[in-house]
């Protein structure tokens, strides 16, 4: 395994315990005000204001509260949480302790995806070191009454468990099927108690903000999207890797950084994100324009965008939890539609039907997975209509080589 390429990151400049010490100098309420003022929003992709989430959790007088770190990074094209957990786990654990101090929680859990099981021994070793240094455990950093400890819980290979209510179901020992929201986890979460669920990157940034100050953070980004973001860039570029850039950066600048110039399209936000054609490369990556959990996939001029749409849809067919009909059945129908387009057998009116189905799925699905599953397909139909219509039928013999199904042997 080779190291992931990065540009100069902020994380190594934050000294251990700096953020936590700064937090403990404030009252929990004052700390929440600082995070609110910073404008930090959820880095997993949904972009909910972190300070507000903590405030809701702090506002309840429930006797048992939890802080959960969502390390179920499964969005295609995203690997920044892996890099953070491998290289800067202390920042994440400290962020959890800070969240616990703000909300009044005393138990934490890291829900680590099954595919990252090789990170577990190191995470547990770092936890133990932090316990010895009194940065976790009872009376943290000498503060009587501030007790917080955490454990790693392994996922078992289900993308939908990145959705926070599905994640909680999974922790409780159930199938990872999302719950209805509201109630939100900050009200009724793990074991029906108040639960704060934050992404790995969000927690690491919270530690940085406490250490460096909210004004430092507000110096980056845009009005609505303050601060820095880690982008996981992969695909057809010279230097794939993890890059720290301010939010609001335009797609062209991302391509400059990774050496992906000349790209035909860029997928922003992974399988559940949008495919941006070259004509829109001046658009900004931020909550008010193109939101992302950090996944940036570059497609060179030689790529077939229909195959890209097919790959994403097959991903959703596989990962749909099957609970609601629009997502379970809709994605299957869209995959069939892509096959018809590939075979040059899709009429314009059928394509309209497919688009209409996709739009229905966006509003009728129960959770974020289903609601965002047709995004890539719809944006590819919009941006590359000419490329996907009126194809030459592929002969049966060549199909095995192009559609990714390798079961059939010549």
């Amino acid at each position, binding site marked *: 395994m080779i190291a992931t*390429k990065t540009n100069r990151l902020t994380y190594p400049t934050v000294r251990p315990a700096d953020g936590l010490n700064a937090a403990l100098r404030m009252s929990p309420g004052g700390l929440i005000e600082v995070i609110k003022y910073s404008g930090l929003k959820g880095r997993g992709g949904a972009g909910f204001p972190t300070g507000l989430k903590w405030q809701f959790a702090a506002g309840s007088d429930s006797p048992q509260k939890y802080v959960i770190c969502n390390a179920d990074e499964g969005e295609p094209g995203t690997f920044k949480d892996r890099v953070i957990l491998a290289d800067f786990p202390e920042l994440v654990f400290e962020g959890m302790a800070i969240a616990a101090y703000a909300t009044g929680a005393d138990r934490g859990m890291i829900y680590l995806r099954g*595919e990252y099981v090789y990170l577990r021994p190191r995470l547990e070793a770092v936890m133990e070191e932090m316990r010895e240094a009194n940065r976790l455990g009872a009376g943290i950093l000498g503060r009587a009454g501030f007790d917080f400890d955490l454990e790693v819980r392994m996922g078992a290979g289900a993308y939908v468990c990145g959705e926070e209510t599905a994640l909680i179901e999974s922790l409780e*020992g*159930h199938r990872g099927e999302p719950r209805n929201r509201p109630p939100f986890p900050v009200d009724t979460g793990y074991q029906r108690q108040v639960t704060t669920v934050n992404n790995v990157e969000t927690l690491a940034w919270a530690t940085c903000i406490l250490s460096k100050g909210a004004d430092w953070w507000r110096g980056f980004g845009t009005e609505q999207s303050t601060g820095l973001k880690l982008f996981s860039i992969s695909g057809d570029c010279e230097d794939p890797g993890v890059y720290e850039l301010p939010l609001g950066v335009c797609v062209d600048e991302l391509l400059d950084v990774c050496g992906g110039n000349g790209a035909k399209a860029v997928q922003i936000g992974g399988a559940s994100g949008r495919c941006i054609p070259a004509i829109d490369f001046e658009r900004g990556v931020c909550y008010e324009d193109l939101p992302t959990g950090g996944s940036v*996939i570059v497609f060179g001029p030689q790529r077939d965008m229909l195959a890209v749409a097919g790959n994403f849809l097959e991903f959703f067919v596989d990962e749909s939890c099957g609970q609601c009909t629009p997502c379970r059945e809709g994605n299957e129908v869209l995959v069939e539609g892509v096959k018809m387009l590939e075979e040059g057998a899709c009429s314009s009116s059928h394509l309209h039907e497919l688009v209409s189905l996709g739009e229905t799925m966006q509003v009728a699905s129960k959770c974020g997975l289903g609601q965002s599953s047709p995004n890539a397909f719809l944006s590819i139909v919009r941006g590359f209509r000419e490329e996907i219509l009126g194809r030459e039928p592929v002969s049966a013999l060549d199909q095995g080589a192009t559609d990714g199904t390798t079961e059939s042997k010549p």
Partner: protein
Amino acid sequence: MLITLEEEIRGELEAVAQKMGKDRANLIPMLQEVKTKHGHIPDVAMQEIADLLGIHPVEVYGVVSFYSFLNEEPQGRFVVRLCRTISCELAGRDAVARQLENDLGIAFGETSTDGYFTLEWANCLGMCDQGLALLINDRLFTAVTTDQIEGIVKECRHTFGDFASQREEVQPA
């Protein structure tokens, strides 16, 4: 004394329940213990866990069937998972997939008759900057190309049985 699989699993699970507590929230960790020990989750383990936790066995089965890392059927000693997600597809997935099938003599979703290999697809292993990614049990290989498949398979074969002494480390690129 002859100990049946049932007795063995019952003993193990009672010890696990003692350690973790008979709490529904520990269902998945318990299943993961069984899986680590036996390579799969036999019916008898599901029944036993259901008894210990005071839930219906169907509840346990529902969980096992939901998660792709929990399997009821026995798998090979080496579970080979090839990432099929987009960045790895761009990095030459189809050719490596074909070569794996050819070298192992099985298709995706199958287990070899000697019980050594199971070949499966994985969804995004989070190694998109170093595609193609391959996970064999807990070991990760990145930037895999068709010409490395032979060596990787050979290394697996040499970690057990008569050839164990001839083990050579394959350096993933």
